[in-house]
Each structure stands twice: as structure tokens, then as C-alpha cells.
């Protein structure tokens, strides 16, 4: 749904050059919630702003819904008519909401419809509908300043949906909100994603956001994507920093000869009694050093740190068994092996 290739953005400010994006290849599939996470200054905002060409990429291409936006961009800073039409088919929500204080809530939601040239009656009907959808039907005549942060963001989301977009871009939409409000906004985004088939590209610096709603995620550092994949894929990837941050396992080794293995299981594998079968099949004693279950992106995921007796070389077969069962396996102190386990 969204594809960028070799996306590069260099800012020139007072003779200095800042490379905010350094060849980003991003692929967001239709209907998924894709999270890009990274620290402040990593280039996340630059990336999302390049996706609807609010920022003109220095190099590379952006394709949204099969349309090459970089080709539509007019000369200079002015956006061509075609680019503006494409933008009106993409919704965007912002960290600081960016609602017009001079307009009521309903008039804010009507704004994109004015741009699309809809009649007054049609605008009002659609705006009311959207406000109901985000749970703010009652506040249509209020001014933004009379709303709480969470309500403002709901208005922001209703406004972003006014043009019936296929794609929603969210730049730190929950970063100015408290944890409880954050959860309710994320739940709303998830619902919209499911019910409207909306593709969501969201940017965040909070791992909890990725954990709560994302189907896929990418880690950004210094203008590059250093890791990316679907969440199950990532969790199944040994040494994945995203996986470790999403779902840390702990547990100190017992000391001595044992081999410490981190096992990640999700979906059906979580239900099967893999560990006891391993123990029975190979007749070994398995110590569980640490374990946790959690819900990531709406799926059950478990992580477990095991210790098998003996050196790695003696445990190659049992570890192979675990991999065959569809588990993500990472052996401590061994170079990572790229796991194909989680891949579709």
C-alpha cells in the first residue's frame, strides 16, 4: 500500500547538511498497522512527512496505493493539483492535533470535505457520522479548546477520515496523551483498521504503542531502517532488538555447563506442550529460567528462557526439534541465525 525506495532527505540549514533519511526502503501492506519506532531525531517524522510529500524527498520514490507521488510533485514548493488530490485520499493525524481553534469541532471535521468540494448538507452529514464513529457525537458544536487531549485527537482522527482515505498516517498521535488516553486512542485506531480496512502507518517512540496495535514494525536509527518485519517474524528473529524491546525475557543461568536458550512462541505453538515433549523425547532435564506471556498486536506470545544440560554441541538435536515445532529459538552466546520460523 505504501512503498518507499531509496528515500533520502537532506536538510540544508545555514550551510550545514543534515541527512534525516538515508535510503529508506519501506513496505507497508494493505490493511496492516505498521509502526516505525526510533529515538527522537532518528528521522521518523521526516519519513512520514515524505510519504505524503509534505517534505520533498531529496532522492528516492514514494508510492501510495499504486500511485507514484514523487512523480506527481510539481515544481518548487507548490504542490501540483494531482498531488493535492492524492493527499486528500490520505489521512494524517498529528501529535499536537493541529485543530483550527477558530472552528467548532464539526467545522474542523468538515474542512477536508470543503477542500473536496462537497455541498454543505453532505459535509454536515458526513462530519456528524464521523464524530459518532469516534465517539464524539455530543461535542459537535464545541470548540477544540474546550476538549481534553484525547477528545482533540479523536477529532483529529475524524478529520483525517473525512476524505474516506485508504491510508492513515500518524505522527506520534499519542505522544502528548496520558497512558490511559493513549490506550483508548490506540484501540480506536485498531478498530478503524479492522472495520474500515484502513492501512495505518504510525510513528512512535514508545514501544508500548507498537506492542498494542502493530502488525509490523521497523526500527529506525540515524535515518535508516535497521530492522523490520511482521511482529511474529521479529519475535522469532534471534537477536532482534525490536523483539527484545517488545518482549524482554530475563533469568540468570544456573552456572556450570548448561546451554541457555531463549524460545519465543506465538499463535498455535503457544498452546502445544512443546517443552514437556522435548523433555520426554530426548530424555533431558530442562530448567526454566524465566518465562512470560503477553499479547502483542492482539496475539498471544510467549517467551521462555531455558537451560539445557551440556554444551551447545550436545544440544544441537533438541534445539533443532524446537525449531521444527515452529518456535523462535535463540541460543545465548552463539551468533544469531536468521530465523525463517515466523515468516509467512
Amino acid at each position, binding site marked *: 500500500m505504501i512503498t518507499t525506495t531509496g528515500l533520502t532527505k537532506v*536538510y540544508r*540549514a545555514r550551510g550545514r547538511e*543534515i541527512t534525516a533519511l538515508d535510503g529508506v526502503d519501506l513496505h507497508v501492506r494493505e490493511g496492516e498497522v505498521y509502526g516505525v519506532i526510533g*529515538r*527522537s*531525531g532518528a528521522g521518523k*517524522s521526516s519519513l512520514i512527512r515524505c510519504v*505524503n510529500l*509534505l517534505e520533498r524527498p531529496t532522492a528516492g520514490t514514494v508510492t501510495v496505493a499504486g500511485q507514484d507521488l514523487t512523480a506527481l510533485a510539481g515544481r*518548487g*514548493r*507548490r*504542490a501540483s493539483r494531482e498531488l*493535492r*488530490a*492524492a*493527499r*486528500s*485520499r*490520505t489521512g*494524517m493525524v*498529528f*501529535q*499536537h492535533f*493541529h*485543530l*483550527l*481553534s*477558530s*472552528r467548532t469541532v464539526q467545522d474542523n471535521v468538515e*474542512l*477536508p470535505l*470543503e*477542500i*473536496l468540494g462537497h455541498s454543505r448538507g453532505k459535509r454536515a452529514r458526513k462530519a456528524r457520522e464521523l464524530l459518532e464513529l469516534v465517539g464524539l457525537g455530543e461535542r459537535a458544536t464545541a*470548540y*477544540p*479548546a*474546550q476538549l481534553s487531549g484525547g477528545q482533540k485527537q479523536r477529532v483529529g482522527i475524524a*478529520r483525517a477520515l*473525512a*476524505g474516506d482515505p485508504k491510508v492513515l*498516517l500518524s505522527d*506520534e498521535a499519542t*505522544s*502528548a496523551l496520558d497512558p490511559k488516553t493513549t490506550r483508548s486512542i490506540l484501540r480506536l485506531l485498531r478498530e478503524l483498521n479492522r472495520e474500515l480496512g484502513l492501512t495505518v502507518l504510525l510513528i*512512535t*517512540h514508545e514501544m508500548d504503542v507498537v506492542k498494542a496495535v502493530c502488525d509490523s514494525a521497523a526500527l529506525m536509527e540515524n535515518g535508516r531502517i535497521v530492522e523490520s518485519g511482521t511482529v511474529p517474524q521479529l519475535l522469532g528473529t534471534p537477536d532482534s532488538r525490536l523483539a527484545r524491546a517488545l518482549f524482554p525475557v530475563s533469568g540468570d543461568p544456573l552456572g556450570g555447563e548448561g546451554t541457555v536458550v531463549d524460545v519465543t512462541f506465538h499463535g498455535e505453538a503457544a498452546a502445544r506442550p512443546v517443552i514437556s515433549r522435548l523433555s520426554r523425547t530426548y530424555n533431558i532435564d530442562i530448567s526454566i529460567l524465566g518465562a512470560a506471556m503477553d499479547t502483542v498486536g492482539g496475539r498471544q506470545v510467549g517467551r521462555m528462557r531455558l537451560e539445557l544440560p551440556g554444551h551447545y554441541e550436545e544440544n544441537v538435536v533438541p534445539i533443532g526439534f524446537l525449531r521444527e515445532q515452529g518456535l523462535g529459538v535463540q541460543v545465548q552466546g552463539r551468533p544469531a541465525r536468521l530465523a525463517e520460523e515466523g515468516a509467512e
Partner: protein
Amino acid sequence: MTWSEMQPLLSQACWDTLYMVGWSTLIAVLGGLPLGILLVLTDRGGLVHNAAVNKVIGQIVNIARSLPFIILMVALMGFTRWITGTTIGREAAIVPLATGAIPFYARLVETSVREVDGGLVEAVQAMGGSTWKVVRSVLVPESLPSLISGATTTVVALIGYSAMAGTVGAGGLGDIAVRYGYQRFETGLMWITVSILAVVISLIQFAGDLAARRLHRRGGHPGPAPRPRPLRTAAPGAGPTDAR
């Protein structure tokens, strides 16, 4: 001088002042608003960045602003005659008054519009809005309280200028003060004139402030406007961590 002698003089003078100031304010707003907006739009980082246009408009505005009004009035005589057919009287005074007030108001508009949160502009662009849509639905409405304050300041300044215009035969309260107060030592009349001016200016200031405040509060701002992100520069390094 008795009140019955003063009364017709004063009411005529009030009317003349109102007439001159009213028309020149109208023209100043109609001319200054687009000029001020253009100054912001064509500036570096503006929506239609154009260094040449920005420079030219900026220079004209600066020069016109720095000229003393009395000199502007004399310098514009030819222009005034060309437009109104004369160089004396209320109509003729409107030409230099408006010409002086357009750049004055344009600068005030520029300052007001610059205060508008650049994020709002971006939001409208992200919806596919054109530059014209940004001007109409963001820049003007969002800075309206400030634009009204600026217009009030302009009216008050114009009342001051109109007094000078009065000395070249345009009539008005300033004219009365000079002709009767200064030249004929009619101190009573002069003090009445001064009082009227003071009251009129206070009333205008009060009405302007009230309107601006009402609009500001309708936007729901409880106190002073929130710290805006300047329109011209996308704040570098404005990351999520500096949000709180």
C-alpha cells in the same frame, strides 16, 4: 465663543474626521491585509517563497512607513489630484492617509500571520488544501483576533494623521484645534476638541479590544495564546521528547 457657536463647528469636524478615518481605514485594511499575507507567504520558508517579490514589497513598505506623514502628503499631491481632482478637502486627504496606512497595517498583518501555528498550515496541506485554502481557512481566521487589534491600532494612528491632514484644509478635529486653539487662542474649544479625541480614541480602543478578546475566547483560549510554532521554519529537532 459660546456653545451654540462651537456646536456646529464641532459636529462638522467630528463628521469630517470620521469620514476621513473611516474610508482610509477601509482602504488600509483592504490593501494591507493581502500585502501582509503576501509578505509572509513569499518569505523564506513561506508557502510561495519568492525572494524578489518579498524584497520589493518589503522595501516599499519600509520606505512608506518611514516617511513622515506630512512629507507623504506633499509628495503624493500629484497622485491625489489625479485620483480626486483636487488636493484639498476631506476626499483629497483620504489618499495620503490610506497610502500611509496600507504599509502600516501590512506590517501588523505580517506579524499577526507569522504567529499562526505552522502545524495548522501543514494539516490543511496534508488534506490536499491549496495555498489559497490555507490563507482562507487558516491564516486569516486563526489570526483574526490579532488582525482586529492591528486594525484598531491603525484607526488610532489614522486619527492622529488626520489631524495633520486637517491643517491642509481637510477639516476635522485636528483642524479645529489648530485654527481655533492655536491661532485664535480659543482655549475652551481646544480643550473640548482634545476631550472628544480622547473619548473617541478610548471608545475605538475599547471596542477593538473587546472584539479581539471575544474572538480569542470563542477559540477557547483561557489565557494568552499558546506558544505558537513559527510558520516560517519547521523547527529542527522538534522530536517527541520535547513534547512534554
